[in-house]
């Protein structure tokens, strides 16, 4: 009797030990992500999620990494630093996530940075645009934060360089949304122009959610600028485009015009021909990697990827690549592996981090001609 019990106990223990061991060997590798799933910019959160998920499923289809599958846990931060702190603190306290991903909004990402530093977990920023993120990372700063998307400053520098070559940079009017994105746009343009002893002809901001652009468009047109830089996204951009059309346009657009979100009728009519825009990404970039990405994305979601989807896709690929090179699912090892990243981007360049943990992928310069978006140049940022 007693022997039976002993054997059963031993077997149970052995089973537990095996299960425990197996768990730690074969459980998925967990990544925590904090993005705005609800609230005003939830469209971007949605696309960020889709991009990241595509990268993860591609990796998992090849057997995962280190013999384990990858799983991403998405938490909502409503583009609000208080919510970001709460959601990331919660994830970090569970001690099962090997890395934190995105943040999306600059203020959220900035609030997350001290948390990951304290917890010793790497943080990969995919979309946030604030220059201060990279300024505070890497050498002399937060060693756990890595920023994959280029700063606005560097992209606008590339754009202004391009425009200056054609002699058009001297009379640019600026209209941007009143947020960190819009303000980064105006500062970026002004800095880039100052380097060439030029400045913006006028600067205007509008409140997000503002529906009516006709007064400010009328004002800007009356000043007869040579170019009009517009920094708007989402519903504001749609409204602006339609209203720009109804006031008759007349000034070529520039800045970070979301050429892939212009309403089809406006695009087809040739109304926006002559627009020059700079973006970190465009679906029409002609590289095999990008074509495959766009097609896979379209098949899954019936819409083409936007900038945010691409940035999250590549940032997640960078993270997965780092985990693979680290050899183990240990946050510190992953951090070290991230620092030595040399991964090919689907845009045809190589992603490497500088000493401020910032990658310098190409910026894409686009124009619209004959109602079609064309890539006319790629510039290192």
């Amino acid at each position, binding site marked *: 009797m007693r022997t039976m019990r002993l054997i059963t106990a031993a077997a149970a223990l052995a089973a537990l030990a095996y299960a425990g061991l197996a768990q730690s060997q074969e459980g998925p590798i967990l990544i925590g992500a904090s993005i705005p799933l*609800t609230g005003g910019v939830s469209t971007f959160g949605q696309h960020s999620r889709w991009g990241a998920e595509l990268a993860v499923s591609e990796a998992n289809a090849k057997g995962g990494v280190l013999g384990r599958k990858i799983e991403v846990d998405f938490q909502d931060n409503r583009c609000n630093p208080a919510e970001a702190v709460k959601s990331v603190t919660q994830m970090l306290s569970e001690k099962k996530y090997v890395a934190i991903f995105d943040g999306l909004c600059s203020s959220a990402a900035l609030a997350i940075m001290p948390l990951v530093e304290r917890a010793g977990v790497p943080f990969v920023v995919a979309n946030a645009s604030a220059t201060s993120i990279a300024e505070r990372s890497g050498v002399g700063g937060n060693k756990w934060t890595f920023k994959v998307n280029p700063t606005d400053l560097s992209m606008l520098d590339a754009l202004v360089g391009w425009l200056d070559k054609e002699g058009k940079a001297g009379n640019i009017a600026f209209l941007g949304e009143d947020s960190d994105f819009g303000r980064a746009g105006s500062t970026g343009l002004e800095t880039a122009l100052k380097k060439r002893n030029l400045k913006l002809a006028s600067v205007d901001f509008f409140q997000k959610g503002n529906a009516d652009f006709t007064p400010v468009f009328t004002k800007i047109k009356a000043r007869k600028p040579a170019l009009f830089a517009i920094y708007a996204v989402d519903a504001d951009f749609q409204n602006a485009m339609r209203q720009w059309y109804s006031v008759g346009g007349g000034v070529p657009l520039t800045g970070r015009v979301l050429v892939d979100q212009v309403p089809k009728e406006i695009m087809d009519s040739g109304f926006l021909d002559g627009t020059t825009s700079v973006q970190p990404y465009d679906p029409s970039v002609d590289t095999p990697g990008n074509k495959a990405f766009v097609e896979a994305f379209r098949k899954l979601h019936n819409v083409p990827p936007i900038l945010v989807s691409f940035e999250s896709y590549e940032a997640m690929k960078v993270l997965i690549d780092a985990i693979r090179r680290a050899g183990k699912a240990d946050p510190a090892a992953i951090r070290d592996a991230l620092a030595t990243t040399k991964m090919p981007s689907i845009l045809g360049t190589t992603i490497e981090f500088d000493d401020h943990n910032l990658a310098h992928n190409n910026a894409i310069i686009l124009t619209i001609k004959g109602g079609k978006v064309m890539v006319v140049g790629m510039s290192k940022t």
Partner: protein
Amino acid sequence: MRSGPTRILLVLLALAALFAIPRLTGNEYLLALGVSFAMFSVLAGGLNLVYGYTGLLSFAQVGFFGIGGYTAALLVTEQGWPLWSAAAAGGALAALVGLVIGYSSLRLSRHAFAIVSLSFALLCMIVARDWVSLTRGAMGIPGLPVPTLALFGREWRLSRPADFYYLLLSFATAAHALMYLVVSSRLGRAMRAIRLNEPLAQSQGIDPLRYKLLALALSALLAGMVGGLFVFYLTIVDPSIFDFYYTETMLIMVILGGPGSFWGVLASSAALAALPDLLRFTTDLRMVLYGAILIAAMLLFPGGVAGWVQRRRLQNWRRPRVNAS
């Protein structure tokens, strides 16, 4: 009604338990919830003071909260002030603004005051976003430094979440103690009188303006101070501190707990600060639920949970008892 001593004992026990939590568990998430609870309880308590006790519907709380946050952040980063003074200054400025707004608009009808308080909160957000030279605009002021507190002769660096937990919990306790003193004193009775029947209160020699201003200034002071402390926990202050979402949450806490009930609002702020995260509702559904609660409360139980409890008690008390004779 529980007797006085029992109540005090219960309160002390609860406080002891709350303060012991960081020792018992290192779970940072619990501490984050605790910080959130401490912050919201002060905001909701202040709103309760203004709306629940004095009967003034005000949307301005979030404005005071943000003013305190920005003031403290700027004083520390630009002028090198220590944390306590910066937060106190934030509270003082908020109280001053509250007095100015109150004095000029309380002469009006309550409709008008409610709308003025709403526009004040909206204006705060616009100013925070557009007065870039002062507030850094939409970028906010990130990287707020780890604050140090001079306490009992030693310098205490607030670098761990547990430190902020202790700090905000202590502040919330002190704030509630102050509010409790006010509401159980003659001041509180005067406020309640004003809410119940202002002309009658006036005829009894109570000057409504003075008490309304007092309630407003006190709630502003506390909201401003807690804002000044909270932004250091976040390490960033940006215009989203004026988000309408805070106002909606505060209102729900007060309405659900019962306007005018000190313990009711405290309990509901605890429940609402912790529960939604534990239930992992998406925020949209949570706001739908809050809206539904608000509607239901207005239609069915305007006194909140505390009011319902009170009514049940009275009903029981009035129930005829069968005489065993």
